[in-house]
């Protein structure tokens, strides 16, 4: 019978929230923002002038031929015999820049509103031009010159815990990028659903509906029913993003940004993706349980933000540490924290993505999260039961923290 009631509370919480504009704004806003960014980027690209810049080279026909033949520089090269003619062409906006050589030193004079010139490539081309000139002066053969100028090729192999990965650099980069993106997404999820469960419980407590509900059911049914209902909304939220991602990859493969994202996802190790997903799902439930315990302290809706602020700060720790993790594979502090429930949800996937941690270590973090979830649910229910029908005055944050001290006291 309790199971039936639990099912009713889960369904009611889920369906009720699903009907609200707020939930769909939460789900659709990131998509709309991404779509807006993609749209603006598309419009900017479509309307930008792609004409190659025109560079006038003064009194140096050899350089004109060299730059034309090399095709390194994306520019139209035009030779001028007189500096004054070149400068007039520049003033008349017929060319974008004037290049002058004087004793192997080059001067590039650009118009303020010139087309963009890739100066790095230009410098590289001019360096090569000087080298060729010097080599010719030293009578070096073309073949020898070719050998001298061919850069060495580096093949990167990453020795990870799983063995050699020929595309290691790409995979690691992809996983880290995904881990950081996930860090942002997880933080967004946690804060959203922490707020949602707090609102749900505080609303029923402050309006005294909780008394009617607890007359019919037990605190356990309400506690786990609310968490179950909101948890389902979070899972649906994630599922919507996955489905939309798949649809977008199938139907819109030509959009450049999407193609870049898909190329990056090609490098993902799927065991990493699965483990990350599990860690994240458990962490969402872990945070919701903690929030439900604290939200039961709240007397009215105006106290919700104040009461859940410590929970938000807690989720912020893991989120911020994800950004300092790169390049610190042996940082003991970060390594230990990546196993700690409430922090591990962002740190461990990031370490895993960077191949600083093995899948076994991630599994240990997951198990620790599950154990924490079990004990927090078990002992948290006592505090919830004690708090949910008690109306206190004074500092709610202090009362919430004091209440957590009683977590392991017997009934």
């Amino acid at each position: 019978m309790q199971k039936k009631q639990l099912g009713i509370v889960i369904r009611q919480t889920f369906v009720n929230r699903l009907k609200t504009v707020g939930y769909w704004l939460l789900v659709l806003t990131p998509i709309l923002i991404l779509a807006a960014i993609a749209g603006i980027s598309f419009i900017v690209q479509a309307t930008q002038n792609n004409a190659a810049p025109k560079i006038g080279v003064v009194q140096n026909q050899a350089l004109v031929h060299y730059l034309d033949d090399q095709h390194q520089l994306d520019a139209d090269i035009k030779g001028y015999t007189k500096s004054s003619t070149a400068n007039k062409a520049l003033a008349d906006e017929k060319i974008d820049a004037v290049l002058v050589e004087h004793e192997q030193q080059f001067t590039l004079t650009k118009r303020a509103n010139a087309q963009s010139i890739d100066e790095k490539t230009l410098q590289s081309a001019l360096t090569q031009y000087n080298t060729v000139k010097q080599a010719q002066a030293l009578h070096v053969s073309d073949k020898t010159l070719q050998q001298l100028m061919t850069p060495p090729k580096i093949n990167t192999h990453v020795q990870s815990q799983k063995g050699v990965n020929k595309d290691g650099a790409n995979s690691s980069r992809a996983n880290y990028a995904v881990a950081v993106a996930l860090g942002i997404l997880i933080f967004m999820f946690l804060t959203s659903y922490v707020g949602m469960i707090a609102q749900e419980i505080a609303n029923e407590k402050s309006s005294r509906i909780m008394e009617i509900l607890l007359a019919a059911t037990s605190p356990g049914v309400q506690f786990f029913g609310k968490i179950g209902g909101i948890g389902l909304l979070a899972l649906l939220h994630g599922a919507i993003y996955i489905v939309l991602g798949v649809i977008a990859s199938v139907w819109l493969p030509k959009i450049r940004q999407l193609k870049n994202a898909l190329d990056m996802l090609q490098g993902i190790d799927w065991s990493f993706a699965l483990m990350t997903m599990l860690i994240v799902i458990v962490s969402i439930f872990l945070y919701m349980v903690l929030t439900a315990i604290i939200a039961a302290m709240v007397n009215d809706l105006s106290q919700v933000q104040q009461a859940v602020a410590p929970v938000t700060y807690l989720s912020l720790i893991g989120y911020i540490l994800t950004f300092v993790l790169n390049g610190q594979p042996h940082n003991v502090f970060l390594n230990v924290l990546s196993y700690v429930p409430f922090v591990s949800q962002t740190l461990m996937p990031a370490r895993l993505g960077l191949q600083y941690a093995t899948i076994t270590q991630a599994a240990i973090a997951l198990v620790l999260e599950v154990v924490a979830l079990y004990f927090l649910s078990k002992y948290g229910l006592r505090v919830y039961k004690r708090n949910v029908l008690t109306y206190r005055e004074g500092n709610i944050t202090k009362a919430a923290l004091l209440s957590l001290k009683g977590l392991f006291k017997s009934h």
Partner: protein
Amino acid sequence: MIEINDLTKQFGDKTAVSHLSMQIEPGEVMGLIGQNGAGKTTTFRMILDFIDPTSGSVTWDGGPITAEKRQKLGFLPEERGLYQKMSIEDQVLYFAELHGMKRADARIALRDWMKRLNVVGKPEDKVQSLSKGNAQKIQLIATVIFNPTFLILDEPFSGLDPVNTELMMQEILNLKQQGAMIIFSSHDMAGVEKLSDQLTMLRHGETVLQGAPTEIRESFGRTELYLEAPTPTDILASIDGVASIETQGDGRLLHLSNPEAGKTVFEIATQAGYIPAFAQEPPTLDAIFRREVAAGEVK
């Protein structure tokens, strides 16, 4: 049967309820009266297992109030609460389902109840669009739609106009006739007297009066005498056993220190023959309540 045995609740050094005992049989209504803070709501919260008693017990048919029994328990809290943004139907059906009722049955019953209680609005309307009185009726419907066996009503008539109070009283009496055990608190003594088979009066957590309303009233003696007669007040006041006299409408109300004085008053008042009114009654519940409250304050 609901049995409350020697129930006590202490908050620190303050005793909220002290050694309360009562029984409620099927088809019986228990009225709980007392000032604010007398311990009525605390008693309800202990019955509902919202708070643990310091000592004593509450049993339903000889056993604890289990999850199964809770399905047949209806509770109307003093501070009303409904989901403001939800439709009437959605929330009444939700509460009904939690009490084990099927949605389809609850949907039909809701329409019937709304008609009986003259609720202005449709089941699809949101609660926030309802007037206070109609919202209270919906609250009562949510409490009783599943035909509870045990009903706890904390101040069910507060905020209701006389017409709606009468409507609600009638529905409570209907539930009583169907065999429900009902306990309710109220400050409306006329309502308590009308509805209750038994009543308990609490003062600072102590039980000061308990029994059937008529028995309680009779236990104070027939000390209130309403008289419409031409007899001068000074003659009435000089009768031994008449404590005080006050004007009430067309007549006078004599407060007697000895009920036997009523006979003397009757003889003197009827010496000239017919008089339109002579009624010697025990004090009203309201008067008893005031008297007990005053006695508590003197202590």
